[in-house]
């Protein structure tokens, strides 16, 4: 029981207090431990990614297995996951890609079959056979084709042109378009919420309108509006921000202290 409950809180206390007082000790030894601890957090975070990928994989396979709504798209997720992983660990050695496309397709088909084994226990043997065959074919291509290779030892995968092309031409367009949706959403949110319903909403509305009009040259007194909006940003906005920042600072400090002292335990679960 103590191992489950007491030791974690003891660890929190020890490391918390150390980091707290480390700040006041400029000596090399304290700095040294500090740097170590920060590196550790980073490394643990990367190792934990395995948990995340496993969760993503399991949830996707589970969706396919139980035929939840939109289960077909889980194949797309898994395909993206594996194809990008393959690219991250392969690179071409010669001038051409050789049988690389064939390999990628065979490998994907093999994975598809193997997922079917998990998802459709009824026809397990058939899919297992096909999956195994495709996997064997992929492995054979990988061994026999010398124009490209697997790299587990060198970060060549990151320079792999396929890895970069898929990042630039598949991930980036989706990413920047998702980001660009904000332009639309900011418009619809403004339309929906900026109604002078009461005093607070009116203040929100008027302040936003003035600032949005700040560079409209068609407006009479445009220069004046620009000045007012600058002033709004620099005076009331600054005051409000400062009040929030001080509040948040206090909240963070109090919560961190509660965590270190073991008063706040909600994040650790029970039992």
């Amino acid at each position: 029981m103590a191992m489950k409950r007491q030791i974690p809180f003891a660890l929190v206390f020890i490391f918390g207090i150390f980091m707290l007082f480390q700040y006041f000790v400029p000596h090399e030894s304290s700095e040294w431990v500090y740097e170590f601890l920060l590196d550790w957090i980073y490394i643990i975070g990367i190792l934990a990614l395995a948990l995340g990928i496993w969760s993503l994989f399991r949830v996707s396979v589970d969706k396919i297995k139980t035929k939840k709504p939109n289960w077909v798209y889980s194949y797309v997720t898994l395909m993206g996951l594996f194809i990008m992983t393959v690219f991250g660990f392969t690179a071409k050695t010669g001038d051409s890609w050789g049988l690389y496309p064939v390999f990628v397709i065979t490998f994907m088909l093999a994975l598809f079959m193997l997922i079917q084994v998990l998802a459709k226990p009824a026809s397990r043997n058939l899919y297992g056979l096909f999956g195994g065959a495709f996997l064997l074919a992929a492995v054979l291509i990988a061994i026999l084709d010398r124009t490209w290779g697997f790299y587990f030892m060198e970060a060549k995968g990151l320079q792999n042109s396929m890895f970069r092309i898929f990042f630039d031409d598949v991930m980036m367009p989706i990413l920047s378009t998702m980001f660009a949706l904000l332009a639309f959403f900011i418009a619809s949110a403004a339309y929906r919420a900026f109604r002078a319903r009461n005093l607070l909403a009116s203040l929100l509305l008027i302040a936003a309108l003035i600032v949005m009009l700040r560079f409209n040259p068609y407006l009479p007194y445009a220069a004046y509006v620009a000045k007012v909006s600058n002033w709004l940003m620099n005076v009331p906005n600054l005051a409000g921000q400062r009040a929030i920042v001080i509040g948040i600072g206090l909240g963070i400090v109090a919560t961190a202290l509660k965590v270190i002292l073991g008063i706040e335990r909600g994040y650790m679960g029970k039992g």
Partner: protein
Amino acid sequence: MKVILGIVFLAVLLTCSVAFAQTDAMTPADSTAADTLSPPAPPTDVKAVDTPNDHGHSITVTWKLSTDDGGGAKSVSHYEIFRSASPTGPFDSVGTAVAGQTIFVNGGDKEKQSEDYFPDDSNFYYRVDAVTMNDSVRSSSEIAGPAHAYGQWYNTGRTPVLVAVLLFMILTIYFVSRARKGQELYVRPLGGIEAVDDAIGRATEMGRPILYVLGLGTAADVATIAAFTVLGRVAKRVAEYQTDIIVPTYDPIVMTVAQEVVQSAYLDAGRPDTYKEDSVFFVTQSQFAYVAAVNGIMLRELPATNVYMGKFYAESLLLAETGAVAGSIQISGTDEIAQIPFFIVACDYTLIGEELYAASAYLGREPVLLGSLKAQDWGKALVIILAIAGIVAANFGWTWFTHLFKVAN
């Protein structure tokens, strides 16, 4: 009536801004170039001491300006600092300082392997040259030293922070122990948190799940830790009402913690059997892919309530607007100042900044947590008192007061 009041209030603010004007830019200083042959006066009173408040590997050299610094025909353009292991030399140049400067920190790397390694505990001697525009026209100071570098165990420049740390600890411990003794503490109602219970009830009636979004924070962010506490409460209610909860996560460690929290909340509610392991899952560690997935969940699962707690960045509005379209009740709380406006606009209830941290105490209703809330309030009172004192000091020109708040880097 209130609208008119608001407009009047704004009008007053705007009138204040009429006069708002900016001062003019300054003009560049002329550079002087002198061409002389007789050397300038050397810098005097050269001293070399270990740099205070550091980890060692550094010595600070100070001097008094050459009398030819700051104009005249033999004007000093910069000072060059030399170092040697013995008072007789040979001296190597270790750096320069521009005219007008009287201090130079000669430091180096702490790693022995580094080329730039600066040893601790070995004696060094220093000399400072005053140099004119013509590099060969210079004069050397007396030799200062010996001095050796060593690391300190306490940084005196950070005393204000230590005082604040101790003060805050004492306040918290005091109020927590008072709360433990059973003193009643008042907490003002928080709109967003009051709404949580109703929202869960509504979800049960509609037979729809609750979506709990923890944002992009990691377990290292205090906002996320506060969000876990709220999650624990929500999950417990969800378990009691037999509704579903969906928690998509962005960080694998956050996922692990969230699983622990939700699982033990179900245990607490006495229904560990109804806990589904897949209710807390990892999506991806990419901001917009995460948003895309959560947006999809909102439109497909149609949760009755969306709760956003933790750290949010540009995705705040993408999430909250999609949630509004899906017709969910939305409750949010973040300490990312830039995102609060978007949540305010698009959500039904928003916990503004510090309110997120108060929420965990408010939800638990445990006396110890409420006690720390009291300490937080005293912190704010202290800010106000110190600010007023500081303003008085600033107006009377008591710079010593401002210096009390100077923290060394």
